[in-house]
């Protein structure tokens, strides 16, 4: 059985299902109660679980730090940070405690926490509301970093994240919350963390993209005069390196697309992993089609900042024509 759902509905349904399944889950964050979250991801939950859904004061470090305590106690916190750009306020708690609780205690403690946050640009949002810092989090050992791109994957990945004994930064592309609707399995649906999705098979060039960029890529590859393989890693950390390498070994060409700034972004890591283990298969440099190394601009300039169809197409062409 499957219902046609939007991403935001998939988030909401998954939270509800998991809360029903496991009474140690606690959902909290700014405006997640009566208001149901600024994007309505938690709508209605407080009525069903008044003792497990809480509005939070405006204190991100506090939200995450409290979660460490909840997790140490044995609960499973699923906090929402209102926008990924405000996870920075909690960065120290994430880096020093969330990510390390297991390793620093040799497994005596662990931190089963899923930090949900709206992520990425493209919705004409306010300053700081369009951040993509997945690479920064991928650089912190002990964290898992997940970016779902479809309603069904959202359910599968969020389920897997909440059940994962380790902490997950779950970044939900705001642009996709309401833009796509597709069948989402009604029954238990788990997409294992660390498994990429080969969204479209092809022979000539591999394009790796996640979040909203996955859809932008899919929207144009039909017009490309070549057979394009599209891979959505879904989990940014741990990355499904083998899926990417298998594809690149086949195509010999690769383009990585992301919204985050280029320098020290995930495209660099993916390029480096290809270099490590598939260099000789490369027939062209891996093309990085990314946000520029400028602060994410206010929305009047955002479409100039993010990889658009032209830039992605040009990247694919450069890979093909090298």
């Amino acid at each position, binding site marked *: 059985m499957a219902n046609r759902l939007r991403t935001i509905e998939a988030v909401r349904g998954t939270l509800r299902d998991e809360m029903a399944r496991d009474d140690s889950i606690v959902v909290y964050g700014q405006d997640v109660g009566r208001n149901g979250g600024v994007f309505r991801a938690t709508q209605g939950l407080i009525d069903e679980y008044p003792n497990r859904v809480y509005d939070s004061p405006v204190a991100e470090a506090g939200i995450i730090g409290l979660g460490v305590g909840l997790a140490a106690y044995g609960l499973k916190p699923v906090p929402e940070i209102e926008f990924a750009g405000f996870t920075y306020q909690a960065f120290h708690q994430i880096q020093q405690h969330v990510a390390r609780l297991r390793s620093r205690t040799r497994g005596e403690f662990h931190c089963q926490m899923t930090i949900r946050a709206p992520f990425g640009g493209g919705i004409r949002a306010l300053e700081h509301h369009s951040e993509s810092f997945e690479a920064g989090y991928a650089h912190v050992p002990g964290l898992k970093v997940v970016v779902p791109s479809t309603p069904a994957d959202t359910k599968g990945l969020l389920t897997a994240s909440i059940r994962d004994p380790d902490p997950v930064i779950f970044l939900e592309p705001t642009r996709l919350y309401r833009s796509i609707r597709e069948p989402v399995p009604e029954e238990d649906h788990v997409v294992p963390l660390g498994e990429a999705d080969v969204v479209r098979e092809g022979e000539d060039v591999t394009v790796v993209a996640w979040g909203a960029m996955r859809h932008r890529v899919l929207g144009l590859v039909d017009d490309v005069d070549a057979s394009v393989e599209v891979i959505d890693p879904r989990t940014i950390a741990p990355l499904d390196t083998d899926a990417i390498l298998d594809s690149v070994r086949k195509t010999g060409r690769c383009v990585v697309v992301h919204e985050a700034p280029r320098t020290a972004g995930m495209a660099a890591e993916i390029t480096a992993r290809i270099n490590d283990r598939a260099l000789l298969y490369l027939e062209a440099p891996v093309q990085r089609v990314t946000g*520029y190394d*400028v602060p994410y601009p*206010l929305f009047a*300039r955002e479409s100039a900042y993010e990889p658009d169809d032209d830039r992605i197409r040009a990247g694919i062409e450069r890979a093909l024509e090298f």
Partner: protein
Amino acid sequence: MPRETAVDFAIDRVQVLAPDGSVDEELDPDLPEDRLLGLYRTMKLSRRLDERAIALQRRGELGTYAPAIGQEAAQVGSAGALSESDWMVTSFRETPAYLTRGTPPHVLLWYAMGMEEGAAVPRETRNMPPSVPVGSQALHAAGLGWAQEIRDEDAATIGYFGDGATSEGDVYEALNLAGVYSSHAVFFCQNNQYAISVPREKQTKAETLAQKAISAGIEGVQVDGNDVLGTYAVTRDALESARGGDPVLVEALTYRRSLHTTADDPSVYRLEEEEAEWEARDPIERFEAYLRDRGALSDERIAEIEASIEDELAEEIERAKEGAQRIDPADMFEYVYATAPPELERQRADFGGESDGE
């Protein structure tokens, strides 16, 4: 000593112009009539700008906009107490405060149009640009006030934030550091009763927000935030104290009468009765009644002011739109550093189509 009181504190609450129109003689700042009318006009201008901005947003001409409707007395009274040599540090809902400090409406509209031009507040005006990360700017106010202390300047800094912001570590650190460094800062907390949907009572168990000052050993005071004479008088005194190195936290009790932003729907989380209660306490109406009472305003004069505001806004909105036509996205590369490093130059060239490689 077994158990004894080590120290005690009190938080005062101040009101100058009461809802019934009475004025406390002793606290009355005794402003000349043209100043009073100036404050009044700015409050009206701000209200009208907010209304027009909401309408523009609904038509897709602005992005998310945060109106200050209901908070005009809090902001115009407090910003009105600043002198030109003082600095102002704002959050994202300070339209009335910016207008008081002379920032033209089209600049504020630019910010809401998603243009950095709207945050390019001229440095000479001693106004900082808007700050979206809640509470983060309180530290900048503490820092500016510290600079004034270091340079021994007879000036102060006002830092605005909301009730929600008082839960952020940054705000507490700002209060504490201001105390430690004798920063010339006045922290002006507009307690408009909501942080998006979260009511003040869920933000903290503290009875007042002014008492957060006690944690820093600095003075805290509450003022009726819908009383423009009160906010003026309290801020004036606080600034005086701050100029001498004693920072102050002012909590202005007010109400966000409109939406959190144009992306928000308050009917989900609050009652109409509550909104109606606060409508009855509207700051502009209270001030207008007072000005009429003392003969400074008449129907005619009000009509004139309203007409001049309409004219001004029509022009400013036009100017904002014109400016929006002229933006060049390529200039996003311009201001990252004083001089763009080579890699950024490569990216700029790529953006401009000058290069065929990324």
